């Protein structure tokens, strides 16, 4: 999967789950202040990403620092890179 394909899968999965308008989903969009997500959505976002990429991330410390869509892109790309 190319980097662009990974980003596309992240964005489409999140857009579908949270019924977001793709045009508002720039990499610098803040998940909470711009996209209107909250703490419950964060729980579901982890499940959506685990389902989309078939990895486990719930216990990852780095998740707590995620604020923007770009943060998610970088986190997932890095996680994929670490996989054997």
């Amino acid at each position: 999967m190319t980097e662009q394909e990974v980003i596309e899968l992240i964005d489409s999965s999140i857009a579908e789950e949270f019924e977001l308008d793709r045009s508002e989903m720039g990499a610098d969009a803040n998940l909470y202040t711009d996209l209107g997500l909250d703490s419950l959505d964060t729980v579901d976002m982890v499940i959506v990403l685990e389902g989309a990429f078939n990895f486990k991330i719930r216990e990852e410390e780095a998740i707590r620092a995620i604020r923007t869509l770009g943060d998610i892109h970088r986190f997932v790309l890095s996680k994929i890179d670490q996989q054997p």
Partner: protein
Amino acid sequence: MSLVSVVITGVGIISPLGNDFSTLMRALLAGETGVREVPELEEIGGLRSRLAATVSGINPKLIPRKFRRSMSNMSIYAYLASQQALEMAAYPPAQLGEGRIGVSIGSTLGSTATSENFFKDYFRDHSLERMKSGLFFQLMGHSCAANVMQSLGMTGRMMASSAACATSCQSVGYAYEQIAFGRQDAMLCGGADEFHPLTVATFDVMNAASKDFNQQPESAPRPFDQRRDGVVCGEGSGILLLERKDLALKRGANILADVCGFATASDTSSIANPDVDAMVTCMRLALEDAGLTASEIDYINAHATGTEQGDIAEADALRQLFGDQVPVSSLKGHLGHTMAASGSIELAASVGMLLEQKLIATRNLEQVDDRCAGLAHLQQTRPESVNIILKNNFAMGGVNSTIIIRSSVND
């Protein structure tokens, strides 16, 4: 006896016969049915009934996702009906968050469909890793009440009676008491339920679900009829806005009807079977609460679901109190049994009968069962001068409930 007068100022309906009050009334007065064949039921082993009265034509996406994510269908129905009731009453939105308006909305269970979907996934590998955050909010017993309050920004009392088929009659009664005793100024109240095959199975296993009319959905259920063969399960929500009468009048609200009496009484003779004496007691207590005698009742909206035992017991109880002097009908022949919503949908329809000055006949009542005879059964919908209505709902678990409403026209 109520300490202050309580009135109904708004009604909201999501039902098998339409998704607003006027559509419901039009369909009931025209004698239509909301019962249909549900082919999916054929795929369930051991289930003999194939009929249901389901809701169609709603758009849940109109509810913001933030609120919808914690809602199963029953909460969606309750929310949409609540919105309608507030709009009909022109209730000031600014007052919703002031703590003086509460909610009393119940359901039979939390969402069975949500529960089924969760366990279907869970049993794949016994993992909770795919469990979404909204699950519990759809499963909890007060899901409808909580979702309505959250989504409408209401901060008053929250009540969520859960008493099977008597749920919403109790919910309205308890709401009436909240206002009557000065604890709240207004209450959104009623019930909601969503269709699931398990509900049908609950009745079918006790030989109390209709199965003889699977190819003729329009002919079932048949309250009080000789050929009745059981319940047809349904879904929906009926929500009424109750207000303290003086405050409603002060804000210029249109009064639809007065709530003048309520009672609920339990019986311990059986957890499943109805008890005639307890039914009589419950109706007597409601009459006493309203300060009325049986002879002052103009119409009885019966619980009568079309089961062998329930209809006979209710007919017996009604005969003891009212003889053949008071017109009686059940709306289950039109609406099926909408479970926790049945009390409040049928009470809303009773409000409609007061407003229209028409009484709606029992659909599918062709030949009255001898054991249900001796009552003034309504077999034709007709204009009638009607001022006071008594409404019953009885439920498994030994629950009996009765509410009495009065026309506000003569005030």
